[in-house]
């Protein structure tokens, strides 16, 4: 039973680029769900949330509540995680290169976020030339149990580490992107939104032999 399912998954993977829209998005959903359920070891969610909270708190102490610096630091911590985490992602999924940003957004939300955080952000607000989109985090495990002090609400992007991870990981697959928060429910906004903008594809760095 499981054998037949996984082999049907792979036939899908082989024809991915020929697939369009809804079909493709459905494939990534089952693909990500399958990895989350059957192929990855998990850690306790509370432990994870608390650990992240302690990191942010420690940064607040270290930088005397200079929230700009804290944002920067969270981003660079994330960047360093991202450039390494991408190898885990690729070893685990072995997905082919995405031909466009639409597919990239599908892979990020339905596979990457699902596998590592068990959430699936909503993709929205596409720019007309399809190189910029928003990830709307309906739920954000990092921000669970979190209340920001009044002065932090105006400046701190509490989950900025996620932007760094995305930046680092995308750069390693030769996509140079600008990534940043535009709103966060912790700051009192209506939604948590990350903006992803593709600057350019680093063509020179694509490993030769790939096409």
């Amino acid at each position: 039973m499981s054998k037949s399912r996984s082999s049907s998954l792979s036939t899908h993977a082989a024809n991915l680029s020929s697939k369009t829209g809804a079909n493709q998005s459905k494939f990534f959903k089952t693909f990500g769900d399958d990895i989350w359920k059957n192929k990855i070891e998990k850690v306790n969610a509370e432990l994870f949330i608390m650990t992240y909270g302690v990191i942010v708190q420690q940064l607040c102490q270290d930088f005397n509540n200079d929230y700009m610096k804290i944002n920067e630091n969270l981003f660079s911590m994330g960047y360093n995680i991202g450039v390494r985490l991408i190898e885990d992602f690729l070893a685990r999924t072995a997905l082919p290169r995405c031909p466009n940003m639409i597919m990239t957004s599908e892979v990020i939300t339905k596979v990457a976020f699902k596998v590592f955080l068990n959430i699936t952000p909503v993709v929205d607000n596409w720019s007309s030339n399809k190189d910029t989109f928003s990830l709307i985090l309906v739920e954000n495990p990092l921000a669970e149990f979190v209340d920001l002090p009044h002065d932090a609400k105006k400046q701190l992007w509490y989950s900025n580490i996620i932007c760094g991870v995305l930046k680092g990981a995308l750069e390693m697959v030769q996509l140079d992107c600008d990534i940043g928060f535009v709103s966060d429910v912790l700051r009192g906004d209506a939604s948590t939104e990350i903006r992803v903008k593709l600057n350019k594809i680093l063509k020179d760095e694509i490993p030769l032999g790939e096409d």
Partner: protein
Amino acid sequence: MGIEAILIINKSGGLIYHRSFDVSKTNPTGTTSKHSLNSNDLLILASTLHSVFVISSQITPKALQLSQSNLNYTIPYHPYVGVKNPEKSPRNSIPNKYGSFKGDDYFKEPFHSWNKSGLKQLSTDQFTMYIYQTMTGLKFVAISSTVLPSHNDSETNMMNNSGININNNSSKNINALQYNLGSQIADNLLRKVYCIYSDYVMKDPFYSLEMPIKSDLFDDKVKSLIDNLL
């Protein structure tokens, strides 16, 4: 398939990992190999391989490149390459754990090959070499002691990924099936080395990127992978 050595080459062509394995088990004559290389030779070998890889992707004939668009780059899954088959091991034995990879194997599905036009396999009358390249440009190389049958033993055959022999001897000199099977098993094995790398090298906070790998854990895991290989 006896693996003699595993090499990892970073995206700029530098050798970051090398490990030789004792193949005396598979070599009944008991002769020890004379071609042991020193670390400098290995570095040269790695960067040469890196260049040859690039060149081979450039010399693929145009006609071949055009007809490649409909080729299938999916590599079939071979069950339990380098890991213990739970069905064959005694019932009361403790199931093996593979790092953050859940279940009794690192992966269980056929997968996509990122190496489309580069050098994939090099066969000589001394050894066979297999290359697996990742999307980030990392190369995993396995040197196998298995010598594949060849039309003319003194000749070196290069095969590119499309399964077409570059030195096109019309006499179907190659047992194509054997070539394909060997290369598929090697790809399965090397993707597992990649999985171990992502777990034990990338998640090691003391490892700096692009630098030589000195990790006992990684060593152990790679060794047990090779030891379990039939």
